[in-house]
């Protein structure tokens, strides 16, 4: 049975293996180069802090288009790979047997359906974990430079491209595709449904609605004025920033919501430019009179964030969610294959 599973899927493994080799060939040299460039920039800034580029390393290093393209596109592979495996390994895994009638060939050999399914699923899910693990390990190592540069790996843009979460998403996508393949028995339908549901789940529902709430965010309150960002620790994943009035109501537009005494201050500092656009111009010197007025009225700035030390907690929680959903999909697959007629 193991030989059979290997024989059936070896071409799929070979294709992804080649992609992995190409990915490594791209990431290993560029990763080393980026890291050395960054390290020597940090070293020279330590000796020469006066160099203007040292105040904004992330804005001065790796500016050529090719570097920028690489930094943005290479991690995309980790975002798309689970989907690709779900569509090309998961969806056809069982639906192809049904459409080609080979279910009736293999289920009438002397192997129970349960054993057949177990071995098939084990091969495909273990292969998914191994390949996703290799891809993600490469990408995580490679992202070391940009993580250090941005001093953040928690932002929703990169959280999903590093660590252990991508591996569990690969497993989830394949389990989902397999389940729909067993359900609809038509590869194209299974493919379409998997595509839609996975995109909705992994790219919309989780990052926008679920992930921010794994743990209660930390809230900081700052008086109106500059220096807001200083109160948010480095590497945190900032969820919200905004103004609140004395009653804790969130304020969208200062101009219309400000209390009457501050409206006056705003009008005094209002200027109209040549194009007729209205703005605020503060005459230099000691503080901003508008901020002062709003502070007096009880207004303040509020930010909520997830601190960086929660990074691995979040990775574990999200991995737990996707693995639980994978288990549900696998259980449903067993039910569909064992209980339904050929």
């Amino acid at each position, binding site marked *: 049975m193991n*030989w059979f599973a290997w*024989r059936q899927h070896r071409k799929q493994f070979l294709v992804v293996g080649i992609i992995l080799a190409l990915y490594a060939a791209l990431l290993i040299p560029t990763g080393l180069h980026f890291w050395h460039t960054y390290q020597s920039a940090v070293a020279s800034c330590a000796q020469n802090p006066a160099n203007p580029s040292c105040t904004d390393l992330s804005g001065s290093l790796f500016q050529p288009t090719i570097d920028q393209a690489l930094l943005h596109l290479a991690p995309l592979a980790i975002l798309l790979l689970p989907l690709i495996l779900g569509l090309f390994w998961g969806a056809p895994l069982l639906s192809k047997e049904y459409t080609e*009638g080979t279910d*009736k*060939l293999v289920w*009438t*050999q*002397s192997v129970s359906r*349960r054993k057949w399914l177990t071995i098939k699923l084990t091969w495909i899910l273990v292969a998914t974990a191994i390949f996703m693990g290799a891809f993600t390990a490469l990408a995580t190592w490679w992202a070391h430079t940009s993580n250090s540069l941005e001093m953040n790996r928690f932002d929703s843009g990169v959280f999903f491209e590093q660590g252990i979460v991508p591996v569990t998403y690969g497993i989830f996508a394949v389990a989902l595709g397999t389940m729909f393949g067993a359900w609809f028995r038509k590869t194209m339908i299974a493919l379409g449904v998997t595509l839609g549901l996975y995109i909705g789940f992994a790219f919309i529902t989780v990052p926008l609605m679920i992930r921010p709430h794994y743990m209660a965010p930390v809230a900081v309150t700052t008086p109106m004025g500059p220096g807001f960002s200083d109160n948010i620790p480095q590497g945190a994943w900032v969820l919200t920033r905004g103004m609140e009035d004395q009653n804790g109501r969130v304020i969208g537009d200062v101009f219309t919501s400000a209390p009457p005494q501050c409206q006056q201050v705003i009008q005094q500092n209002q200027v109209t430019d040549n194009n007729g656009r209205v703005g605020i111009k503060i005459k230099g010197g000691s503080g901003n009179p508008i901020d002062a007025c709003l502070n007096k009225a009880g207004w303040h700035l509020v930010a909520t964030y997830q601190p960086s030390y929660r990074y691995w907690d979040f990775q574990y929680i999200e991995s737990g969610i996707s693995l639980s959903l994978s288990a549900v999909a696998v259980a449903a697959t067993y039910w569909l294959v064992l209980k339904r*007629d050929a």
Partner: protein
Amino acid sequence: MEVAIQTKDLGKRYGSFWALENCDISVPEGSVSALVGPNGAGKSTLLNLLIGLSNASAGESQVLGRVPHQREDFLADIGYLAQEIPLYKSFSTHDHITMGKSLNKRFDEEFIRKRLTDLSIPLDKRVGKLSGGQRAQVALALALAKKPKLLLLDEPVAALDPLARHDFLSSLAQAVADGGLTVVMSSHLLADLERVSDHVIVLASGKTQLCDDIERVLKQHKLLVGPRSNTKELGDGLRVIHETHTAKQSTLLVRVDGKTKVPAAWQKHEPNIEEIILAYMGQGKDLNEGSAK
């Protein structure tokens, strides 16, 4: 004689449609049964139930003394050839042999290699590139290499040209002659079945119309030709299976139970098995039309 397959009131329902209903068959061990009936009569449904590929909605069945189930010990004794002869197109014949070895505890590799070599089928070619006849031979050899006690074949020759069909049936007849094998083969090609089978099962509209030994069936049926008349005038013990009338005469295919005498007014002929089977298939059709009204 031992019974290889026995079903009682076996039924399979898809939604509200009964693909097979109240099916009672009995297949003796060592027989070669022809399972015939028009398309959609429930032949594949019955075969799928017998090997446990699908679950019955009603009734029961015993196959080789066991209830059909997806279990290794049950499957090991049955060879099955599904309709359209599914094989893994990207696998070579050799791969299929390794697959058979990998998926069956009992699998006679030497036998299948010799058999396919004798048939000059290339073992290293992808089966997708073999002819239909060669694919059917590979599938039959795979089923036989399990050394089954029962072989279920679902329209194995339907897609083959006459020569390939002839070769396939010869192969089958040879395997049967080697002994110890019970065969149920469905088809709508009556002439082919007559060559290899000694037992017949007629299904029409999801119901069993006939299930018996061919010799006995031949003895029990008569073709009566006489002046046009009301068939109800025939005596008890005669069952009219099929009747056709012209302006002047009536032709009846009747089943004669016991020693009932046929009225002298009728000319008596011996029908052949094909005529009898067609009569039973037509009966199912009539029944169907009757219920539709």
